[in-house]
């Protein structure tokens, strides 16, 4: 396996891109651009688009950071650049 700094950085950028994609889809996508159509779906008493803007995005942001931190830990180990 390629353990060079280049390969490590590529793995990091891939992860960052994946997380940013979800980050964008929930807030700008579901919370803003598609909020109108999503409001036709109800989540309990919440119209879904409104829920994403006022609640959902924030929960998903929290989850995203922890998922990122956990996956980064694994990448660090794999490429042997983790802290001792």
């Amino acid at each position, binding site marked *: 396996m390629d353990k060079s*700094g280049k390969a490590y950085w590529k793995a990091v950028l891939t992860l960052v891109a994946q997380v940013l994609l979800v980050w964008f889809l929930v807030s*700008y996508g579901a919370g*803003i651009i598609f909020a109108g159509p999503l409001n036709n779906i109800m*989540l309990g008493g919440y119209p879904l688009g409104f*829920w994403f*803007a006022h*609640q959902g995005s924030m929960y998903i942001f929290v989850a995203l950071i*922890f998922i990122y931190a956990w996956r980064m830990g694994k990448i660090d180990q794999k490429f042997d650049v983790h802290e001792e």
Partner: protein
Amino acid sequence: MSLQAITYLVVGATFALYIGIAIWARAGSTSEFYVAGGGVHPIVNGMATGADWMSAASFISMAGLISNMGYGGGLFLMGWTGGYVLLAMLLAPYLRKFGKFTVPQFVGDRFYSKGASAVAVLCLITASVTYIIGQMTGVGVAFSRFLGVSNTTGIFVGMAIVFMYAVFGGMKGITYTQVAQYCVLILAYTIPAIFISLQLTGNPIPQLGLGSDLVGGDVSLLSKLDVIVQELGFSKYTTALPGSKLNYFVYTVSLMIGTAGLPHVIVRFFTVPKVKDARASAGWALVFIAILYTTAPAVAAMAKINLFRTLNPGLVSSANYDVTAPDAQISYDERPDWMKRWEVTGLLKFEDKNGDGRIQYYNDKSKDPKFAAAGWAGNELTVNADIIVLANPEIALLPNWVIALVAAGGLAAALSTAAGLLLAISSAISHDLMKNIFAPDMSEKGELMAGKIAMACSIVVAGYLGLNPPGFAAGTVALAFGIAASSIFPALMMGIFNKKMNKEGAIAGMLSGLFVTLFYVFAHKGLFFIKGTDYLGLIGGANSFFGITPEAFGAIGALVNFAVAYVVSKITPECPEHIQHLVENVRIPRGAKAVDGSHAH
């Protein structure tokens, strides 16, 4: 015990706690002063970051803004939390690995230029000072509303408290006080929200209550609210959007990257022991922030229902209710006590425009002919947005100790943010200006003393600005986020993610991003916010750039910054080899050492 006495007791107790922590956590070295010795646990740092981040604006004003804006208020919620995802992935771990005391020092070392560092110091100080004015005014408001002392006395007391733990304790004192302040402010915010959610929906968790049915019916809270506001001529709460969708989008981007670029937040991540901790700590910070930020929309909507129920008693309970019926609104003489109390402060104003002695609170810009037909002559009640949080417990008839707790919470929010900002300012002065530029041979002891003096001076300046808020106070938050978004964030990001970025590109980028943003903001608000010097004609009218408001313009400034930096870096000498190695080294966690102030070259 009277409300006044309980408030004194609760606020006094929290202040005693902060001072106790200050005595325990004195800073003896520059490392303790700038980064709390670098040994703060990631969860503790997350909590401190939460208090650092959540200002008087978050605590006092945000729910009220959301209450007024409805769905459109989501830009504050998403904008001020989404930035932490960027911070966690793009900046915090790398800046922690770089291992220096301040943000301008990273800029200076990475772009091998004292000029770049000086530009960063300039941006940092402008952003932080404008931000701090709001905190000091917040302290004054909380004191004068709840403790019955004058604004001036309030600000002096606030200054004295911050002085004690910030000057002697530095980052160490600030960190541990912020942990205590977080606990106070989060209790003060959530307890009233829990009570109100229980009263309205029977569900104690506000985040769930907001999506539940109202007590005694099968109508959901939000759909009821939608009906009520439309009855009174406002736009539908769950879809209301002031301005265009594009502006909503761009505004949210500006707040997100502004959040990630605010130096007083970034430096908090220099206090954790490892790169790994910096990543996790950002997650914990957002957990603690989200507890308040997900409660805020519930507070906003529920307070709005309570307010309408107070003013139009039959409106919430009955389905077919004529809001314009002559006896539908309460008469001014029968108004509840809390309204009388808040009228004194000027945050609530009644003017009987049609002379019928009743309170007509509605959207008088509505085209609906029913209001004029009923003889309504305009909206008669002016409600300041801050009331939504400050008077919320009183509107919901909660016990006095809850009201006292809200006062302590507002103060905790303002003081904790002020302290974080003061540290960012004083370290930029003592470390980046004095130690790195003007007096490089200063001893550690001398630098520590310089830091403390800079901090003391900053407190005096902040207090002065709080007492004599300059005319531009209202525009300041927009300015702070605009500067952070358009200058600091792009420079830091390119410093890490583009190893070929050179000093010419970075400086040109920062200056042009800053210039474009200021140019657009000043066009609307006047040169340096001086009244009468606005030049909207020059840019073709208000919001002329695709309908984007000046508050939202930071994102455009950031784009300009990235573009200019890229082009300039392509036509100027390449970034030196050893700096490219430095960047490669910053990108991997291994070898992270304790944070210090020495130079990389």
